[in-house]
């Protein structure tokens, strides 16, 4: 129910000023490194097939127009395949159903792609950027650490996610205070996701940057798979500041056939769950067939990063108008 004060912005003018400064600094950062700023459409006929991401549909009086993008990834990869070289974009993205302290259905994503970069080189650049943006901000990150998904689980939760079965994961979740409703509907991946979000992330050192890499292959999304300690993992990393996830980086999948198989598998899983199958991006598949240069790419949630830099306790404090005020 709206209250009379809801016309006012949720963010202070200090926060809005800091946001403007952050955008100016990141543009200077990429200009100095020869990364080109691009703009791609927010509205697309194709949508994300990811079962955990809900795309918002757009219609006009004549019918369906398409979807608001959940990330500019497909269009940016088409630019890469067309020979753009390194590119970045700051854009609003939209994800249905994501409302919470650290979620808003519309948020600002910084996404960039580096042809020829390894994941390690991209992690270096992410850290350089975060530290550059943190200069003269009230809150700056402390040390940084890179750790494998498996090692992080063993260190913080005391189980090996590659070998633990559901019979181990359930009591482990209970022991971490994660009492679950309808637990019989949980898959192995659900239990790992729950432990990751509910127990592992909150245990990461508060002021430090932690890069976690080598995710389960089932969570590869649009990343390559690779071998790590004799086990297949997704060539992906996530950046955390304290327990808050800020960024997701990929060694980008180049194989069009594998990409198409994953789209189809996602849609099959969607149908199994009673979710609508999504029209996937045929143009992207064509671009991959034409040849995507080997690239590493990453997306950073700028609202979350800004909130952390200002020491804010919720996303609303850095959004002019969060979802409850629109």
């Amino acid at each position, binding site marked *: 129910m709206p209250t009379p004060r809801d016309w006012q912005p949720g963010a202070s003018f200090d926060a809005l000023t800091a946001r403007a400064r952050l955008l100016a600094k990141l543009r200077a950062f990429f200009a100095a490194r020869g990364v080109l700023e691009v703009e791609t459409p927010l509205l697309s006929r194709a949508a994300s097939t990811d079962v*955990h991401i809900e795309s918002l549909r757009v219609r006009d009086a004549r019918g369906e127009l398409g979807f608001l993008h959940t990330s500019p990834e497909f269009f940016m990869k088409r630019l890469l395949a067309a020979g753009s070289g390194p590119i970045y974009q700051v854009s609003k993205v939209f994800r249905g159903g994501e409302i919470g302290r650290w979620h808003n259905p519309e948020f600002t994503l910084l996404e960039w792609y580096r042809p020829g970069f390894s994941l390690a080189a991209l992690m270096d650049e992410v850290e350089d950027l975060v530290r550059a943006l943190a200069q003269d901000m009230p809150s700056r990150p402390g040390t940084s650490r890179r750790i494998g998904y498996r090692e992080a689980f063993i260190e913080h939760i005391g189980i090996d996610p590659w070998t633990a079965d559901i019979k181990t994961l359930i009591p482990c979740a209970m022991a971490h205070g994660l009492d679950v409703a309808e637990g019989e509907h949980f898959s192995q991946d659900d239990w790992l996701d729950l432990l990751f979000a509910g127990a592992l992330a909150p245990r990461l050192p508060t002021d430090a940057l932690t890069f976690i890499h080598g995710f389960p292959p089932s969570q590869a999304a649009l990343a390559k798979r690779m071998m790590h300690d004799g086990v297949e993992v997704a060539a992906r990393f996530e950046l955390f500041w304290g327990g808050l996830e800020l960024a997701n980086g990929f060694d980008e999948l180049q194989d069009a056939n594998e990409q198409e198989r994953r789209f189809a598998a996602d849609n099959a899983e969607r149908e199994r769950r009673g979710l609508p199958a999504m029209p996937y991006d045929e143009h992207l598949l064509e671009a991959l067939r034409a040849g995507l240069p080997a690239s590493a790419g990453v997306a950073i949630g700028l609202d979350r990063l800004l909130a952390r830099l200002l020491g804010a306790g919720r996303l609303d404090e850095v959004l002019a108008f969060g979802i409850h005020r629109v």
Partner: protein
Amino acid sequence: MAYYSTSEFRSGLKVMLDGDPCVMLENEFVKPGKGQAFNRVKLRNLKTGRVLEKTFKSGESIEAADVLEVEMQYLYNDGEQWHFMDPVTFEQLAADGKTIGDARLWLKENDTCTLTLWNGAPIAVTPPNFVELKVIETDPGVRGDTATGGTKPARLETGAVVKVPLFIEEGELIRCDTRTGEYLARVKA
């Protein structure tokens, strides 16, 4: 039967969990980067008062609880049941000892209480936050000692025992906070 989906979760929502009615106190949406989203919820069991935490997969639903809170006047206790009346409709309801719990220690006839009803039957009784009750038993007062801060136990007309300042005498009226069980002030008759 009504259901709430996780996207409708908010504090104050009354839901059924493991057969008991609960009220939602907090709801946090959590989602790993590329995985399943969850709602981590803190709830209070309205029958036992216990606070518990539950995690739901986002997108799931939970049964709504038919719970409402009504203001009713306390009438009397017949030895087994405590009787209340709606001051507007004059409808009467009775609550047993288990439902009354510690509220019994503060109930004075004609005071207005809050009854929590589940499917129309009382499951909890909350006395008024502040009550004025007579001291029926305490050690003799210490005249003039209003400053040393010492206390002594005093039994009140409704059965509650509270710590009162040394100068309070039997037969005096005092004001108490039923939520903390603490003495607040002497009431001049």
